[in-house]
């Protein structure tokens, strides 16, 4: 499973991904999420509804190394940029992305207050891990790539798909996840950020499948 070089001129410098490799990455992340939940449930005897802050913290802390280490392998410009530099970019991207996510959530109506602070921090770190961190590891400070992925939604490479689709999936899932919050069902999971997190995770899982599907189809078309 050695990385083969893309033939395209401009994008030649990024490390490309084969289908099976993409599958491994997707599976690792997906299973990692499942593992987080089972650890929370079986070892710590907590779940997202009862201890949102702890479980979200567990998820991002547990997934952080996986995501950064996995995505850093597909960094752009691998000749000039070492693996560890990409890892460092990812680590830096985590808090920066968290700030962006938290501000976005507050603009959309997330509650602000001292009792929500740990929840919001952990939630936005988790969101950041799934949205910003992969892109930070892969693209670094290449503004045109960021713009291409997040503003124009024009993924080209398999790596682009692996970054673009899950990131959008998480955000859209979280957006839809916010809708049950005002309902008067008085269920504990309606609290911020529980159902938003559920929505985000659901969106993330769906988009993982979708991104793998896209890569598969593209590979298939290429093969023909």
């Amino acid at each position: 499973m050695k990385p083969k070089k893309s033939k395209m001129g401009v994008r030649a410098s990024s490390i490309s991904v084969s289908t099976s490799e993409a599958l491994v990455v997707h599976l690792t992340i997906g299973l990692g999420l499942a593992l987080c939940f089972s650890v929370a449930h079986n070892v710590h005897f907590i779940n997202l509804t009862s201890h949102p802050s702890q479980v979200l913290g567990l998820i991002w802390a547990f997934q952080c190394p996986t995501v950064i280490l996995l995505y850093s392998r597909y960094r752009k410009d691998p000749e000039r940029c070492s693996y560890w530099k990409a890892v460092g970019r990812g680590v830096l991207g985590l808090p920066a992305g968290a700030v962006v996510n938290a501000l976005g959530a507050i603009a959309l109506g997330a509650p602000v207050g001292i009792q929500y602070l740990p929840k919001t921090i952990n939630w936005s770190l988790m969101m950041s891990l799934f949205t910003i961190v992969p892109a930070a590891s892969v693209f670094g400070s290449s503004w045109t790539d960021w713009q291409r992925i997040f503003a124009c939604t024009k993924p080209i490479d398999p790596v682009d798909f692996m970054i673009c689709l899950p990131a959008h999936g998480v955000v859209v899932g979280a957006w839809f996840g916010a809708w049950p919050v005002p309902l008067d069902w008085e269920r504990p999971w309606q609290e911020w950020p529980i159902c938003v997190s559920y929505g985000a995770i659901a969106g993330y899982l769906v988009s993982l499948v979708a991104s793998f599907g896209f890569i598969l189809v593209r590979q298939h078309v290429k093969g023909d």
Partner: protein
Amino acid sequence: MGKGIWVHWVMMLLHVVAILIFTRGFLLTRTELPNYSKCDDVSQSPCFFEDQDHKPHNHSHPNQKVCWSKPAIDRLVVIVFDALRFDFVAPSTFFQEKKPWMNKLQLIQQLAATNASSARIFKAIADPPTTSLQRLKGLTTGGLPTFIDVGNSFGAPAIVEDNLLHQLAQNGKRVVMMGDDTWTQLFPNHFDKSFPYPSFNVRDLDTVDNGCIDHLLPFLHREDWDVLIAHFLGVDHAGHIFGVDSGQMIEKLEQYNTVLQNVVEALESQSAPGGLHENTLLLVMGDHGQTVNGDHGGGTAEEVETSMFALSFKNLPSSIPAEFDTSFCGLDLDNRNICISSIQQLDFAVTISALLGIPFPFGSIGRVNPQLYALGAGTWNFEDSVGNCQNQPKLDEWMRNYVNVLCTNSWQVKRYIDIYSASSVIGFSHEDLLHIGNIYAKAEERWSHTTKKLLLHKKESCNELLPALKRQIEEYSAFLASVAELARSKWTEFNLKLMGAGLGIMVVSLIIHFLAIKKVKEQYGFSFTSSGDSGISLGLIFACFVGVIRACSFLSNSFILEEGKVACFLLATTGFVKLRSSVMKKKMISEAFVFLLLVTICRFTIQVGLSKHASSSEFVSAYPLWMLGITSLWNFVAEVLPVLALILLAFLLHKAITRSSPEGIWKYIIMGTHLSYILIAMHWAVESNLLNLAWVLKDVGSNCIPRLVYAIGLGQLLLLAINQLFIKQKSLEGSKILSAKAVAMFSVWSSTVIILLGKQGPFIALVFIIGGYCIMRLDNVELDGKDGGSWNLMLDPVPVTQWSLFAVCLFFCTGHWCAFDGLRYGAAFTGFDEFIVVPQAILLTMDTYGFSLILPILGLPFLVACRGQTEKGKQPILGRLSLVYMIYGLIVATSVTATILCVTIHRRHLMVWGLFAPKFVFDVAGLILTDSFICLASLYYFSRVEDHALYDPIK
């Protein structure tokens, strides 16, 4: 005239028709009459001959003047358990299944079983809506619910109709109340003593109840009251929070059983002849039922069936003839026989009035309930009535009294129906009136010709008298029953056909609206996509998606409650989408960020407003954010900042007008607005405590400045109208003249709206201007130098959607919400001290809809005028403006249609009177105002403009 203006008028017409038809079917429109019953009214009735005849015999109340009926009881203890289900009281053997919450009020069952003649359980049937406030109203007035009480004073829910408590107070009965503070809201001045406890905290099961218990027992040993009302809320709250099948509910019921035990013991110990409670009646009752989940408000059997228990402390023989006994009997758990009667809540007020001997409430349409009335019979002096019926003296006496009371009862109901149909706009139909009139006439005839004579000539034998009395009672009962039935069908039932028709017309109007937009769009050659074909753009899909999601959100009461937040959420979403496209095009990123920041500010303002709404509706300070800071520094800033904002606003307006059109009438308009702003600043300076300026206006009065501002606004409006009608405009560039007009219009209205809104006004105006500017600028994000031709003909619905969402957000930002207590009544009195209907209504409308409707609609041309143009060819500005207005109208109409649909679906919902109906009224009023303002704006902006300046089609 621009093409497509007719659409606005047609739409307005359609909307008005649809809303009128729907409203006739939906709102329960009973007019409240201001009439009150008086003691001496009864002399007009044919019933009261007995007064002179019987008075010498009546020794039981020698000092008391006999009013409408002979008093049967002296004192009354009413214990109200909120949301008392019927099966809380009745024995479980009466139901198919035994549930854990049954048989908890053991005392009641025991009393009902052991002394069947003096204690009785009733199944009380309430009329929906089964909310406490409406039920208390129904119980005390004996009438059916109204939604809009025309005679209602601003804001306060106090009952103005004639009611039981008014009659009690008028006739010298001292009333003591403890418990739910709804009573003191409804009857602010009627209680001799009251111990109200707050009822809004549903999670608190005990405060109200403990307060009641603390006061109830001591009062039972005091003699300084005649009627005691204790309203317990624990069962209602336990139901709301934990449901009926819960430990808390059972605890509450067991607690109540203990309370009742104490009460009955206390009363019984003093019920000996001559005792304090010799002639006391104890009533334990619910105001409505509840579902197993603890909800109430609707009309299901569980919700309307509550119970009532009446206990008299006299040992009474069974005194009611079997014909009038509607009770059904069964065995309880201990195989004792228990009988349960039934009573309509409607009958409560009149029965209690009859028992206490006070005039019946004027608007009551109930019937004196025979069983409950019989429980008071113990206080009559049977020895006195030495009739010929020695074998059945009590039955005879009861029948005489009852027929007499029913006569008065029927006369009173007939009087009410006659006066009501004479004075109300929507009265009863002629046939209905004729029908009940006939029944009454028949009963009346029998009364005057037969029964009266029989009663007067006491020598007649029982055999003749009793059947005659029975027939008379039957006839009166038939009359009262048919009146109640008629009133129910007219006042409490929704007319589904009318509602469906209204909704149908509304939907048709939406379709016509849509088709009209399509037609006008094709006329001018606009398209939604940048490529110029007739396809569907992403922007269109997104705008539709936002519109549909907002409309769907109205289907749930929670989303209506949080409507401001939902609108903000959607607005922020559109902001993010715009940010995305501005990043894509690499320009106007700062505008996008400013817009998001603004939405965030709006969001916090709305939140503060909502929390204030939840806690109390008192306005301590005009500007909500600064309620938090009480220090003097904050006060200082709070006084000065609005003035600074005002100055900034004036500067912005000045700049805007000089940029678009530096000369002509516009200059004078702006000068007038500046003058108004200075006056407003002066007004605030005078009102504030910082500068002691109160002396300045001591002579003139503080009302003169606001009135001057209104006058300047009117003058400016007049000037604009004259200019519009008589002065030919100079041929300027189309977009410039349009923006000049819009700025002028904005400035004319802004001064009045700002002074009405108080100190938050200039901030909201600034937010409005900045937000509008951002929306306008962001509209141009897609403008590329390359394909100018198709850009000029591209129509993006997203900015219009944003504009309308922004307007909704501003409605909530300005401290309003869709409920009648969300109206800022204080604003209506800016510049006026006393209440005058027309100006106050106009001011209140302007305050409520100023920033959410009037200014956004009048400001819509900015969206068109400031749209960037490419060099190649001009765009048909008026065509675009017309389309923008149509799209705006469509967006508003869609959400109102969703509200109407939702109100139709939820017409039996718990919250229908508390939430859905007010929302409906606000939305409908808003829609009609929107339509009329769109029509006015189209007249203003479209007419008498040099056609060639605006119509230049491309090429």
